[in-house]
């Protein structure tokens, strides 16, 4: 009896200590998720109560050209951005991993842009990519002007809008550089030396010794990048509003369309259905990455 009641006491204490998170989870995450699941089966113009319409919202997505376009554009962004960001940040980390003087300075230099608020980074790049006086186009035109090549109007040219967004996103890979650098530092020197004695060149050493050892970190970073890439919002939202001459669709991404449906077009039901599709895609891709990497990722004991 006393053993049982002390167990209950301990359970009560435990749940009491974690109760802030539990309450927050129910109020600000789980509750809203259930509510949005319900809305996703309704027509809800916000000013009137929701009306049950079954699977209509989900069916509508299949024939909605804008939906398909934003989904494809977001996928394109993720497919190009994630490998590029991974290779670039690994390469910079690799450079910094050698015996580099002032390593702290170089680390700070790549890390600082990750602290810049997205609204600020949108403004900076609006200026850098300006067609006439932007630093990038001035440099391109000054260097290649004699060949007759002229720099594009990045943001207002629908062909160059996506590369611009990718370039701006790559500006903040610094966090991953730091994480990869820490992972590379954990690779034991003896293993690299043994591999060198076996006659492996630097590329083979990287591929068959280093890469397997840091693969859990790569998986973690890729999953984080993927979850973020599917939600991309602030940079294209600000830049497309700031580029009146451009094609507004060139920088129109999934979350932007969802935001417009929910908060501008008064279609909370449709927006909620899109939210759930986004959630399912995110969870599905995360699960796929974990399963696909089972064979590739090596966890050390």
């Amino acid at each position: 009896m006393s053993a049982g009641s002390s167990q209950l006491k301990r359970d009560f204490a435990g749940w009491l200590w974690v109760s802030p998170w539990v309450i927050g989870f129910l109020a600000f995450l789980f509750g809203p998720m259930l509510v949005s699941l319900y809305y996703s089966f309704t027509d809800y113009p916000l000013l009137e109560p929701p009306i049950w319409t079954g699977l209509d919202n989900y069916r509508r997505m299949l024939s909605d050209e804008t939906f398909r376009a934003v989904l494809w554009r977001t996928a394109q962004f993720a497919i190009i951005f994630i490998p590029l960001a991974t290779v670039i940040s690994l390469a910079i980390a690799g450079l910094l991993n050698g015996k580099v003087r002032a390593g702290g300075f170089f680390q700070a230099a790549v890390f600082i842009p990750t602290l810049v608020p997205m609204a600020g980074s949108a403004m900076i790049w609006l200026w850098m990519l300006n067609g006439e006086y932007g630093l990038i186009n001035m440099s391109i035109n000054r260097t290649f002007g004699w060949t007759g090549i002229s720099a594009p109007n990045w943001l207002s040219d629908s062909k160059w809008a996506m590369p611009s967004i990718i370039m701006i996103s790559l500006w903040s890979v610094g966090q991953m550089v730091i994480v990869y650098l820490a992972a590379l530092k954990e690779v034991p020197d003896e293993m690299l030396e043994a591999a060198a004695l076996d006659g492996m060149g630097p590329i083979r050493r990287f591929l068959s010794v280093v890469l397997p050892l840091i693969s859990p970190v790569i998986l973690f970073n890729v999953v984080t990048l993927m979850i973020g890439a599917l939600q991309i919002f602030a940079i294209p939202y600000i830049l497309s509003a700031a580029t009146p001459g451009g094609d507004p669709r060139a920088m129109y991404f999934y979350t932007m369309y969802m935001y417009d449906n929910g908060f501008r077009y008064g279609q909370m039901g449709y927006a909620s259905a899109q939210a759930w599709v986004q959630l399912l895609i995110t969870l599905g891709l995360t699960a796929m990455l974990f399963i696909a990497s089972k064979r590739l990722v090596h966890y050390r004991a």
Partner: protein
Amino acid sequence: MIRGERGILSRVVVYTTLILITIAFLMPLVWMIATSFKTQSEASRATFSLLPDDPTQIFKNAKDNYTAVWNDPVVRFPVYLRNTLIIAGLSVVGMTLSSAIVAYGFARLEWRGKKALFALVLATMMIPFPVVMGPMFLLFSWIGWIGSLKPLWVPAFFAGAFNVFMLRQFFMGIPKDLDEAARIDGCGNWGIFWRIILPLSKPALAVVALFHFVFVWNDFLAPLIFLRNQDQFTLALGLQLYQSKAGQTPWNHLMAASTLVIAPVLVLFLLTQGALVKSVATTGIKG
């Protein structure tokens, strides 16, 4: 491993690459600040010069541009700064304290359901904010919080998954003998938490506070949804409003405004001497 002439050559290549990378990463910020020190006609002209034509004018230009931004009659940066500081201050206190309490429950107490609940905490990190933004807006307007800053700081008092995870790791590294000694002295959980765990965890708590401050300062989507009138805007929203207000905002003024919004986080980074870099290195590796 590699010695001799090849070593020197490869060092030259490594340092040249690193310097080019540094320029690529820092040039946008340098160009932003340089533009904010120019006159309007100097800013909108094809020139690579970092300085104004007459370098002695740099202080006068800076004063003109920054006061023009600060005193703009429509886009009121002083108000946005105050709002951002209120939200950031309250959120940072709430997030740090509540995450520490929850982390204590996971790190130090034994209770049924702990493992499953902790797995749930980790799983929630995958849920995208856009999924819940609609119902959250409706919830907040239903309880009358839209029109106030509450939607942006009250939820911070209910702990954040990543911060709970980080603090739990840190707390688990503190020897349990200290708890036992305190218990013998008559301390309960709260006493142990307040007098032993928290004082020993100052570095970890500082990192959580710092990260959350940067997060709040940067956040764009949540303020965009929850703040409906301009008197409540944060700096991030204010910056966008400043850019989009009627008529062409001159580049030197827009860059001065951007510098004002970005500078506080950069100063914080320099003051904390790379504590952020170090903590990113240690947390990332546990994935």
